[in-house]
């Protein structure tokens, strides 16, 4: 059984759970849900936080992306993209916003922030980052991290991440998060100084490690199962969607060839020439319309991807519960065995095997003093163990309570977001159909006038 460090996680929480902007100022988180996946700079909107007792609104936006070169840890030249984060506070009275902070961060710093949050808030379903590398690409879309479209979508994803954190009732009050938005230099050092990396439970990283837990909370088992299903089904969906996009691209683009050939053919036709030529033009329009259509669809895919990664975060919370439950059960087991040993020593009956007992049998009884000493040690250990078990139990119940509350919050958010995403997908399809009707109606007119 692993020996836990004497500091339970509670002591690792950052000392000041200060709201942003100072002791008296309060924070009203900007809406995350409205802005996600939508237009690039749209980060404003009303607060989604249920408890509407904040006085000052802030707006967060990741407004720019810039290519930079620098030297990395091994003193080698590298190219990376930096993102500009702007924070504005909104005065309630006139609704005007004032730029309060502006700094540049790169993707790895976002990762650092998230890893920190994962360690310090294991009971929270921590919002995910946009993917590190482009996956589920259909062939025309670049898988290159430096590709401007990818960078643009990542910028939106990072903004979405910050908005999600800022609108989370607990996470938004974290000091490190606050410093991420306000303190450009030295932030990395500050995070590392919290020593969070040491506290990270390496056992959780091993996703496949099984702790044989006897009495997990059934709700968490169900949620873990759900998170697996969600991951699997969304991956499948994204894969097939990418293939559908590929095929659709093919259908549209081949029609573009008609444009060229009709135009060439029209040169030798007298009566048919004009009709052919203008029909050909419409074929070109049709063929080029697919680019925008699929670009829009990519945003839909990003919305789904967010929940693909959210599923992982959900799973992590369940794993944490399992781990805590496992440790609890191990501690209880250990305590029970010590109690039994103690009892046997006191009454003289040997029911449990112990090396000491064996040697005693073989080499003769121990002295009453020796036995007394041993009982005393055991009694101390039992006391300690009981305290620990008590606090572990308390911890466990706290965890379950808080985690379940966040899971409920997450479920509501997920249902809203997925519904909205699917509806926006329908809207995209409708727009595509309308464009198709228009272009083919025009083409039909040209053909019928030939």
């Amino acid at each position: 059984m692993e020996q836990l460090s004497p500091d339970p996680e509670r002591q690792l929480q950052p000392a000041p759970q200060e709201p942003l902007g100072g002791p008296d100022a309060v924070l009203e988180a900007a809406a995350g849900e409205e802005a996600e996946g939508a237009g690039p700079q749209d980060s404003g909107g009303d607060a989604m936080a249920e408890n509407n007792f904040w006085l000052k609104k802030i707006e967060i936006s990741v407004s720019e992306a810039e290519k930079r070169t620098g030297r990395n840890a091994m003193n080698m030249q590298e190219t990376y993209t930096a993102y500009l984060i702007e924070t504005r506070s909104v005065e309630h009275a006139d609704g005007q916003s004032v730029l309060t902070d502006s700094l540049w961060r790169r993707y790895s710093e976002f990762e650092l922030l998230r890893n920190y949050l994962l360690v310090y808030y294991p009971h929270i379903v921590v919002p995910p980052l946009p993917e590190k590398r482009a996956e589920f690409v259909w062939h025309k879309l670049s898988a290159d991290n430096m590709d401007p479209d990818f960078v643009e979508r990542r910028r939106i994803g990072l903004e979405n991440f910050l908005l999600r954190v800022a609108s989370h009732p607990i996470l938004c009050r974290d000091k490190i998060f606050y410093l991420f938005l306000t303190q450009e230099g030295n932030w990395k050092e500050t995070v590392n100084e919290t020593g969070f990396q040491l506290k990270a439970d390496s056992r959780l990283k091993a996703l496949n490690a099984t702790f044989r837990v006897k009495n997990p909370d059934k709700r968490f088992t169900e949620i873990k199962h759900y998170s697996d299903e969600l991951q699997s089904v969304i991956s499948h969906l994204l894969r097939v969607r990418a293939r559908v996009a590929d095929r659709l691209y093919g259908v549209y683009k081949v029609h573009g060839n008609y444009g060229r050939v009709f135009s060439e053919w029209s040169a030798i036709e007298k009566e048919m020439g004009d009709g052919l030529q203008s029909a050909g033009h419409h074929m070109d329009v049709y063929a080029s319309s697919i680019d925008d259509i699929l670009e829009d669809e990519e945003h839909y895919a990003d919305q789904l991807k967010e929940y693909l990664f959210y599923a992982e975060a959900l799973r992590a919370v369940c794993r944490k519960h399992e781990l805590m439950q496992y440790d609890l059960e191990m501690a209880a087991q250990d305590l029970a065995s010590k109690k039994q040993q103690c009892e046997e020593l006191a009454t003289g009956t040997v029911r449990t095997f112990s090396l000491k007992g064996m040697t005693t049998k073989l080499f003769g009884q121990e002295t009453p003093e020796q036995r007394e000493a041993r009982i005393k040690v055991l009694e101390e250990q039992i006391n300690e163990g009981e305290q620990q078990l008590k606090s572990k139990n308390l911890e466990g119940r706290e965890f379950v309570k808080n985690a379940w509350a966040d899971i409920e919050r997450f479920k509501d958010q997920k249902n809203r977001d997925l519904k909205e995403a699917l509806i926006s997908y329908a809207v995209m399809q409708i727009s595509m159909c309308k464009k198709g009707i228009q272009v083919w109606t025009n083409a039909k007119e040209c053909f019928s006038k030939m």
Partner: protein
Amino acid sequence: MEDERRARSAQPRAGEIPGGGAPLPGSRGSPGLLRVDVLDLDEDEDDLEVFSKDASLIDMNSFSPMMPTSPLSMINQVKFEDEPELKDLFITVDEPESHVTTIETFITYKVITKTSRGEFDSSEFEVRRRYQDFLWLKGKLEDAHPTLIIPPLPEKFIVKGMVERFNDDFIETRRKALHKFLNRIADHPTLTFNEDFKVFLTAQAWELSSHKKQGPGLLTRMGQTVRAVASSMRGVKNRPEEFMEINNFIEIFSQKINLIDKISQRIYKEERDYLDEMKEYGPIHILWSASEEDVVDTLKGVATCIEQCCKATEKRMSGLSESLLPIVHEYVLYSDTLMGVMKRRDQIQAELDSKVEALTYKKADTDLLTEEIGKLEDKVECANNALKADWERWKQNMQNDIKSAFTDVAEENVHYYEQCLAAWESFLTSQTDLNLEEHSEDKL
């Protein structure tokens, strides 16, 4: 003479000018067929002899297109016009059947003819024909009318992507093309009265076999081939301007129609691939809905929309394969035919040119040559006029066919998008209605 001609051939078509003689200038209303004597001077001569002596000049079996007299300008007025209202020959090609013998396996098609024409012994005929028979017919028509545009036959075999010669799609495509072939002949003002065509439609199997064996066709064809080779070596120096234009058109048309054929086939393939992926895409949403509680209806709704789009895609694809693809492909084959017709015209002219050349150098008996040249000049005139008239007819038909095929495709596409739109809009409405319901419930 005319009586004999009439007796031998069909009853004159309605509106036809009964006597010989030049067409009257204002006679646009008359059908395109006119019988004009070749040589008005030789009224005493037995027409049959004239015909039989110069078999290559005038076909014994069908009415020839306008024969020139003076003035030549009148020729341009005459057009071949199809008259669907007067259609009196209806042909269908149906019921492919497989026949197995010790030597070979082949397919026959049932050819049903319904007609009100007097020259047919009955009003309904049903015969079985195989691809070879169609080939034979085409050859005979080409022999009889070297400068008319004979409709194309579907290819002998399609090498690309064919596993076995007789798979269902191949047979069906071929059947439709053969049906088209016969109907195009029936609609052609000259070809429709061809005797071999009649035999093809009406004769029983053994009758057809024996008919095939007779006739000078084979020899003339061979003779022509020899001459063709000889003259093609010399090339055509004096191809008239109008035929240069036509040739130019044919070259470019051929290029473009081939490209359009490729593009259209490719579109069909891409649509099929798209359909396959969509068929997998929809059900994933159903699968997902099984693990959700709240979003079930939305997910199922999306799956339904995708399914409806799949159905619409299938319909669009079948529209493409039924209307556009066969027409475009037929015109690909037509473009080969056209090039052949142009070549044959050039050959006929080359014959004349070589004789004229010979005369210039006084290589042989001048009198004989002059006589031959006279005949050849008429032959060239004849061939050119036939071609020109048929060319105009062909061009008109092509424009109509292309126009209607592409208009249909556009219509299919509009319909496709309308169906998809309806599906998604109805889904959206149901979702917004639900939302309103939920909100009003919350307020209660």
